[in-house]
């Protein structure tokens, strides 16, 4: 009789502990990783997209709606990356805490100066994101701003633990600042060098570390490269003395291998999201691996 009672008590304690935690939903793994660092054990973070998944095409599951209904805070990029699947999920979840403008809705791109924002909206220049390039989480300094944004949102949703969140943010900022020295040092020898990307997801990373990312294997997002485009890429790489190609898990590695074999370039298998590569669960660990892999490909 006693044991079931203890179990029931433990369960009840667990449940209240679970209830007491702030329910956080992050659309993409990078926001999730930062949210975990800021929230610590005071929050329960759910990430929708898998780190190896193309963020444009996320397979929505019923639990997403359940989580959104119970969420206190939603963190999204807001720069058109999740536009295909998040609005209908939110519509079905009908959670007033997450309405636009409420403190529970964190739009990470707010207050960020985006790169490659089209000056005119004719969209004749190609498939452009009207709000600018959405891959800003590849710049650790921008990530600090996003972390602050998240800490403020947590603090206003859960005032009792506000001090903890701000303290965690201070720790996060310090850690990133220390790491920035390290990462900058690792990248310093390659200042001005070209990195060839499959998709234009690296402009923020390149800008932060003094690299150049202007050559892309795909002629346009989602369009497989034509032979003439690859010929042009190979010629461009030779004139730019580009020796490093970076490929993400959901891109076609064969194209990169082909181009690498005719230019002698080296391929770095990288990712945009923490957790996509082994031992990259936190943002700092993730950036460690990315910097190391890109540096290795540039060195050879």
């Amino acid at each position, binding site marked *: 009789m006693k044991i079931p009672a203890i179990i029931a008590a433990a369960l009840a304690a667990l449940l209240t502990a679970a209830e007491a935690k702030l329910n956080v939903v992050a659309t993409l793994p990078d926001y999730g990783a930062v949210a975990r660092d800021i929230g610590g054990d005071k929050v329960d973070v759910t990430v929708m997209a898998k780190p190896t998944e193309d963020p*444009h*095409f996320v*397979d*929505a*599951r*019923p*639990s997403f*709606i*359940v989580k959104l*209904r119970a969420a206190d805070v939603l963190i999204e990029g807001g720069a058109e990356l999740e*536009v*295909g*699947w998040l*609005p*209908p*999920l939110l*519509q*079905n*979840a009908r959670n007033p805490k997450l309405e*636009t403008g409420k403190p529970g809705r964190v739009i990470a791109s707010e207050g960020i100066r985006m790169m490659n924002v089209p000056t005119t909206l004719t*969209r*004749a*220049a*190609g*498939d*452009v994101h009207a709000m600018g390039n959405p891959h800003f989480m590849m710049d650790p300094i921008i990530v600090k701003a996003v972390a602050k944004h998240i800490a403020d949102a947590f603090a206003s949703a859960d005032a009792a633990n506000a001090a903890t969140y701000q303290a965690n943010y201070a720790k996060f900022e310090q850690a990133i600042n220390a790491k920035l020295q390290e990462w900058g040092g690792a990248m310093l020898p390659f200042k001005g060098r070209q990195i060839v990307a499959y998709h234009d997801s690296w402009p923020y990373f390149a800008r932060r570390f003094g690299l150049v990312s202007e050559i892309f294997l795909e*002629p*346009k*997002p*989602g*369009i*497989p490269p*034509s032979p003439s485009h690859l010929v042009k890429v190979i010629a461009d790489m030779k004139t730019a003395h580009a020796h490093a190609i970076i490929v993400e898990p959901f891109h076609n590695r064969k194209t990169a291998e082909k181009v690498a074999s005719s230019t002698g370039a080296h391929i770095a298998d990288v990712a945009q999201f923490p957790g996509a590569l082994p031992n990259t669960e936190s943002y700092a660990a993730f950036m460690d691996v990315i910097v190391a892999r890109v540096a290795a490909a540039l060195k050879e």
Partner: protein
Amino acid sequence: MKEILEVMLWPLVACVILPPLLVYLGLHVVQRGIIFIDIAMAQMASLGFCVGALCGLELDDPLNIAIALGFTLIAAALFSFTNKSGSEVPHEATIGIAYVVAAAASVLILGRAAHGDEEIKNMLVGNILLVSAEDIFRIGTFLGNFLPPMKILNEPPAENMHGGFLPGTAWWFLLVGLVHLIFRPQLCGVSFAREQSHSQGMRVRAWDFLFYALFGFVVTSFVRIAGVLLIFSYLIVPAVCAVLLARTMRIRMLIGCIIALIGGVGGMIGSFYADLPTGAAIVCALGVLLVATALVAPLIHRMKRAQR
């Protein structure tokens, strides 16, 4: 159960009210032996949107929608023209070729078009879980022009949602169902009794064209909310189950609807509790039902024979 209703109310509604027409069309399609017609039609409509994008039109531009419907009609004309009885070339070959060429042509065109790649791709990978009340019941600004203002059904679509111009899927289905009801003798004639219709002097090709055109509208409006996999399963699996179990049209229709309902609702509940992608769960549930039917069918036939 209450939670399922709260989370998946509109997908459930869609899986209850929409499949009967698909089952009915599926019986036609299976009888005609043109299994891949749905994918070919969806791809042709998608090609139409690509051509519109090449001309710089936005996806929900009325002109672009008209172009897509135009391509559906071209496909309908093509399929009705090539459907000659006794021809050396199987009709399914023409349909398959239309599919691959349309798919490849969209890739070529998208390389040139200024924008819209992702959205056009999204049209073929619709997700039943994300269906909203507007997707199903919206009147749309197009029909709204002809109707007195109705507040409940004519609300503007939510932010970032495409397609506020066309009416919701339910109205398309209603329209196509009505036309099928009105011309039932002719449309059933060309599907189920072709030789007889020929000999009676019916204009088979014209009725074929109407059949394919209506079919194209249904596929194009359903594929956007449910995706290619799901529409294919809804058309073919219940119809095949029904053909295995029964002979008359009426009972086949009844069996098909029951299979579609069990598969749809069962798959959806399964996807909720096991947290699986909903569309794929429904497709697999329908597949399991087909296997079960195929196992049970011989027993039923044997029992019937024994009774006689």
